[in-house]
């Protein structure tokens, strides 16, 4: 498929190929590029939305690197579209994934492997980041600052900001370079047996997506019906007994099926909003 044929009729999923027009490997990423991508990582959530979450901002962050690596226009388009898909990780730890992925892009790994590693990394880092930042650093820095502030001490907000951001920015820059170096080192040993690596990455990726469907899709009914005298909570009493997270799983595969049928994602978004509003109007949730 010629990558030049850009019409709306081209199926987005078919557009993403696994190979490159220009497979030559060249080391082009400098420390300066990595730092530039760290600054861009600050806008990871700028186009945040419920469909792809950080997908747009993630792609935005990679752009300087991708442009330098993929000199072939077709390759660049495929890489951009591939990264534009669902992405969500902890906003402070994202540079680690960025570093690894940019190293893999530079080495022109096949797209399925890059995608697999990306998806496999994003979920676990989300959990680690929550624990590190929201449950550790923020309460500590906030607690120290608040104890000073509550006595009317100006140092409260200042110490809070300094303590928080030394750790915050220190980690952002460190993780980008660390991720990139890890990526380049690991890749040279991965080079043989690309197919097997790709399979391994897909296994981890799909297992993580399975877990993400169960943890991120929030689809619960709040309906209570009267079975004779006894009120029955449909969610807890019936659905959860059949299978917990049955609705998220079923709805995800329903969307998957509709996509395969050729329905556009926009239709699915509209449908989802409608379900939320109508369901809430009739008291389903």
């Amino acid at each position, binding site marked *: 498929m010629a990558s030049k044929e850009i019409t709306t009729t081209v199926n987005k999923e078919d557009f993403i190929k696994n190979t490159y027009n220009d497979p030559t490997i060249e080391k082009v990423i400098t420390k300066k590029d990595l730092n530039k991508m760290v600054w861009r990582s600050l806008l990871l959530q700028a186009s945040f939305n419920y469909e792809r979450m950080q997908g747009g901002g993630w792609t935005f962050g990679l752009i300087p690197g991708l442009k330098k690596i993929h000199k072939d226009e077709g390759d660049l388009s495929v890489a*951009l579209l591939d990264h534009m898909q669902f992405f969500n990780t902890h906003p402070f730890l994202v540079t680690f994934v960025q570093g690894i992925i940019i190293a893999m892009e530079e080495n022109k790994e096949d797209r399925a492997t890059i995608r697999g590693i990306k998806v496999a990394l994003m979920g676990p880092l989300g959990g680690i980041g929550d624990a590190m930042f929201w449950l550790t650093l923020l309460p500590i820095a906030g607690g120290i600052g608040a104890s000073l502030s509550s006595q009317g001490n100006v140092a409260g*907000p200042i110490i809070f900001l300094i303590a928080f951001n030394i750790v915050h920015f220190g980690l952002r820059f460190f993780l980008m370079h660390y991720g990139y170096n890890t990526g380049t080192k690991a890749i040279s040993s991965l080079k043989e047996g690309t197919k097997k690596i790709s399979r391994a990455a897909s296994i981890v990726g799909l297992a993580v997506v399975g877990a993400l469907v169960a943890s991120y899709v929030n689809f619960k009914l709040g309906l209570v019906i009267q079975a004779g005298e006894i009120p029955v909570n449909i969610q807890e009493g019936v659905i959860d007994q059949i299978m917990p997270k049955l609705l998220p799983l079923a709805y995800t595969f329903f969307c998957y099926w509709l996509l395969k049928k050729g329905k556009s994602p926009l239709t*699915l978004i509209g449908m989802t909003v409608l379900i939320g509003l109508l369901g809430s109007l009739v008291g389903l949730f």
Partner: protein
Amino acid sequence: MFIQALLIGLWAGIAGIDQFNGLTHIHRPIVTGAVVGLILGDFTTGLIAGATLELVWAGMVPLAGAQPPNVVIGGIIGTAFAILSGQAPEVAVGIAVPFAVAGQALITLLFTAYSPIMHKMDTYAMEGNTKAIDRLNYMGPLFLFIFFFIISFLPIYFGAEQAAGIVGLLPAWLISGLGVAGGIMPAVGFAMLLKIMFKWSYAPFFAMGFVAAAYLNLPILAVAILAVAIAGYDYMSQGNTPKATPVVASGIDEEEDYSDGI
């Protein structure tokens, strides 16, 4: 009052951007409270109210993507009312929380409304138009700024009672329905990811990940470690014969194409 409300609105806009982009945490009540105190000419009360609200919001953090009552709106409106009404900072909490909850519902709406933009981005990606992707990504913070400006300026300029009346006009089913839709929406994103990644030969691993999270409530990291272990076993049990198949980095996807028929 107009100038002060304007300044608070501008500050709320900046803090609102920081909550999602930059994340230097100038959006936390401990900082926003002090700045609002400065704007309203009572720095000490601002500091103290900020500290109180900071501790209230200490546990309300965005875990696993779930959004708590909005911390920017809570911190700024709470502190402003504490200073303007002369009430104790603890009372400010009671005023701040309903606004923060309503604000979060509207942010849910904003994040839902931004979903279609992704398809514009897809088109630009296919055209290789990185400048246009950049532009769309810069637009998000702009919307956040406008949103936070309006939602902080109005209640402070017009006073709490009128603003609370407007919040009350939104029907409850509308706000909760948008929240529900926002909760379900990631399913669409996952379905698109599956359309690219899913092969029937990988279905068992998807099932494993799902069961581990849904039944065993394992965190994602635990699922990933399990999956790495399984993938490692799978990798080694395939026989270590990379030499037998000279690997060319292209055209290696044939074996999995049969999934398209299903």
